[in-house]
């Protein structure tokens, strides 16, 4: 028993130390620069691959050299990333950093696929680390002990550097008040680059030692980034101590769960994180002050470039055009076109649902795929257990998604900003892992082979059976589903637009503009945000339900966090806070994918690059392009000077507004 516990301790600490190194960089980068770096996992993977490349020509003994050189190289890349992509965004809402670094994830991950082989590779280790030591029935490999000791030394070194060096002092001072540090004549931006580079180097270091312990593969970054975030959030964003405690704790808990309660292996840490955040909304060691609201979310053009009549006409023309698509299938183009547009419509609806909360209340849900998957699984389970009527199961999907959205909203909307993004991500990952483990949801295979009919009480039609030919035009089941999906999208758009013009919508807009003011004219803003979240969840559930009705299956991969990320990409690409922008974003996303896959498998690389450029240069999305190209036309209504801020850093020399209204909440006194 004792030896078993010791074994657990060794294994747990090995993983724990890797987590500590990873989380420490993430947490320090956040603490100092307010940047949530999703690309951290990819830098971690990059470290392992660089080491692989460095070791390959020389054999295992080059490991020690690689352990030094690879982090250095990744550190330099980190400095470059900070300098050229992150820096232009200082002063904007920290959520833009999430979006930016998500784009970088796509880019770096595809670069890894492009340069190295896709499979798993073993990192050659030197002779002296490959043995094992047996003490009291416990066999610990030398390498495990090496990781634990080296990792602990690294962590101590980083801590000491922040605590005792002049460099550390300046960085800590900058985290408190960067303008003050600038006033002292210190070029704080240079230090930011170094902090980012150092965080990247730490991640690379962690990647190499984990690569030696397990294997090196292109998905290693994706698989550690979410636990690393859990640790950072658990410990408190920006807290080095929190990262260390959280990292070791999660390493041990994960190892223990794997040994004693494998059913909770995937879900355990997310339950832990959600539990901690509910009790301590800023993590174990976090403080209120760690969360700053700097800058607004930039939504698409308000008031609009075109007058409302033109826009209505344009909208009608678009819908009319879309309605024609199935008619030409099989003659003018292949039926695949219809499949593609169905996908665009369903994801357009999904993106629209996210825009309703993100674009109008500023709540960035990083786990929106949860509702998409929930809708999909409700339909799948409903078809097998409740009714085969498409209308009944879709109704169920909407209602259930709304109910769950209310519950999640109730638990998470009291935490704001970045913590909200993280807690929704936590819920989605929890659901994802549950789906893979429960029998009723078909485990990791999901549910498939579903059949349905369109009607009620047993009377209706199955779409597969339909094929009507009118000359060259074939009306098939697929084209009928196309119209159902299109109607759902148009109806949802009209419904949400109507809501936004109501008093309810006016309050949502006021929350986006200035939540504190909304509170002080008498609105219970959390209640309004929760209602918006319910509407959003219901619509996302509808989108997911439509997917399963059409595809006939539901798998856990629908809830993958990449899907949550991609739907955010669509919203930003098109233009947040416009409702129609995200639909256009969906079209561009799938259009690009379609176009690019014709040339390369690595289309995410191109897409990620485009997305990064968008976040930096055109945060208002594609729909803000016309009004940017034609500035200040006379008679263009509603173009305020602040609705289209320049993304250039020079225009925003002070990222922390001195008279931030939130001071009243966080500091409490004059």
């Amino acid at each position: 028993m004792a030896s078993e516990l010791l074994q657990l301790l060794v294994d747990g600490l090995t993983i724990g130390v890797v987590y500590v190194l990873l989380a420490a960089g993430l947490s320090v980068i956040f603490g100092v620069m307010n940047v949530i770096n999703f690309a951290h996992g990819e830098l971690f993977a990059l470290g392992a691959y660089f080491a692989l490349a460095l070791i390959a020509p020389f054999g295992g003994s080059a490991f020690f050299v690689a352990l030094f050189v690879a982090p250095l190289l990744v550190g330099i890349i980190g400095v470059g990333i900070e300098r050229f992509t992150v820096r232009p965004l200082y002063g904007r809402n920290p959520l833009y950093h999430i979006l930016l670094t998500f784009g970088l994830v796509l880019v770096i991950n595809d670069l890894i696929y492009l340069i190295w082989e896709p499979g798993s590779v073993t990192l050659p280790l030197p002779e002296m680390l490959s043995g094992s030591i047996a003490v009291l029935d416990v066999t610990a490999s030398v390498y495990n002990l090496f990781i634990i000791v080296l990792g602990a030394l690294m962590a101590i070194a980083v801590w000491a550097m922040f605590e005792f060096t002049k460099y550390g002092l300046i960085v800590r001072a900058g985290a408190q008040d960067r303008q003050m540090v600038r006033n002292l004549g210190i070029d704080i931006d240079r230090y930011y680059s170094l902090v980012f580079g150092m965080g990247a180097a730490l991640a690379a270091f962690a990647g190499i030692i984990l690569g030696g312990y397990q294997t090196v593969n292109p998905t290693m970054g994706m698989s550690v980034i979410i636990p690393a975030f859990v640790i950072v959030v658990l410990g408190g964003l920006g807290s080095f101590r929190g990262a260390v405690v959280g990292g070791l704790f999660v390493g041990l808990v994960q190892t223990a769960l794997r040994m004693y309660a494998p059913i909770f292996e995937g879900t355990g840490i997310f339950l832990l994180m959600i539990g901690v955040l509910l009790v301590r909304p800023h993590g174990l060691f976090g403080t209120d002050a760690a969360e700053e609201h700097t800058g607004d979310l930039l939504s698409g053009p308000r008031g609009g470039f075109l007058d409302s009549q033109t826009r209505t006409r344009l909208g009608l023309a678009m819908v009319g055009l879309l309605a024609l698509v199935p008619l030409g299938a099989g003659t003018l183009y292949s039926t695949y076109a219809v499949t593609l547009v169905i996908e665009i419509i369903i994801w357009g609806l999904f993106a629209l649902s996210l825009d309703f909360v993100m674009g109008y209340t500023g709540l960035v849900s990083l786990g929106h795929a949860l509702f998409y998957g929930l809708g999909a699984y409700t339909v799948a389970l409903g078809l097998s257990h409740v009714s085969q009527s498409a209308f009944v199961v879709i109704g169920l999907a909407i209602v259930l998604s709304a109910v769950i959205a209310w519950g999640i909203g109730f638990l998470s909307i009291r935490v704001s900003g970045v913590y909200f993004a993280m807690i929704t991500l936590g819920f989605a990952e929890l659901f994802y892992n549950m789906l893979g483990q429960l029998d009723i949801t078909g485990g990791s295979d999901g549910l498939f082979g579903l059949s349905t009919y369109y009607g009620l009480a047993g009377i209706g039609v199955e779409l597969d059976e339909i094929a009507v030919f009118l000359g060259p035009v074939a009306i098939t089941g697929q084209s009928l589903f196309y119209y159902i999906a299109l109607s759902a999208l148009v109806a949802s758009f009209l419904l949400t637009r109507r809501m936004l013009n109501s008093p309810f919508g006016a309050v949502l807009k006021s929350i986006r503009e200035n939540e504190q003011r909304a509170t002080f004219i008498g609105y219970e803003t959390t209640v309004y945000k929760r209602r918006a979240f319910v509407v959003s969840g219901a619509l996302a559930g509808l989108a997911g339900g439509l997917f399963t009705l059409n595809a006939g299956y539901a798998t856990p991969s629908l809830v993958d966090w990449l899907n949550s990320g991609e739907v955010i990409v669509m919203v930003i690409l098109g233009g947040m806070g416009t409702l129609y922008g995200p639909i256009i974003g969906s079209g561009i996303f799938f259009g690009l994918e379609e176009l690019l896959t014709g040339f390369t498998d690595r289309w995410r690389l191109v897409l990620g690059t485009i997305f990064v450029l968008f976040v930096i240069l055109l945060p208002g999305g594609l729909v803000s392009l016309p009004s940017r190209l034609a500035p200040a036309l006379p008679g263009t209504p509603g173009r305020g000077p602040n609705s289209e801020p320049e993304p250039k850093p020079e225009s925003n020399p002070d990222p922390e507004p001195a008279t931030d209204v939130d001071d009243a909440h966080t500091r409490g006194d004059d």
Partner: protein
Amino acid sequence: MALESSEPSEPNESNESTDPTEPSDPIETTQQRTDNPLLQTENLVKRFGQFTATDRIDLTIERGEFRSVIGPNGAGKTTLFNLITGALPVTEGAIYFDGADITTLSPSARVRRGIGRSFQISNVFGGLTVRENVRLAIQSVARDEYTAVESLFKPTDRYDELNDRTEAILDRIGLAHVAAEQANALAYGDKRRLEIGVVLATDPELVLFDEPTAGMSVEETRETIDLLEAVLVDQTLLLIEHDIELVMELSDRITVLNGGQILAEGTPAEIAANQDVQNAYLGGMTE
């Protein structure tokens, strides 16, 4: 609605008569204590860790009073405001508004009870139009008059009564001609008018102003104060202000805070003559 109310808000003359609707002779000099103050704090304490920002404050604001809170930096003025408006939870003590205990109410619930808070000028809904800014405040007060379905689906421009009230406020603050403009596009002074109009639209009995003239020129300060006096004539006002001259001129009574405690309280003349205040605060200002 305050603007429809013809009731004089002057404080009552005697302790016996506490019915605010009964006409009474306004007094120009020192306010008398009444049994029915608008706002009262009892033994109010706020601690941040080891630091006591508000230390056993007993504050009583009479109806119709213009009260100013002054004190050196760090005296706890803003904390006191945050406690009264609900932006911060109290550590100890109680707050009564209009006779009811509001200590644990949320900020928005306090607004609905009649406590309005004005912020510094930029604190409006910048991306919305001037009309929308005011209408949001009107709508907040009137929300119980409409069904849930109406408030979810009926377009705002079809609420005739709300829109009438909105236009009335816009007229009153003199911004009717720019009602369709985005708030961000307003000139400096107009933005302040809007800010005050938004507060007014929530129909407050008590309005708290935190340094409404901070960073303004003498001229701008004067304009702002004139506007306050013109538009908020029926309201009870609580003001934090650094400009001592202004405070002396405007206030009915002044409360001086120092180190989280009330150092002195009285009419401007009493405060000016108070030796403690001279030592702790005023002396330091006339360097």
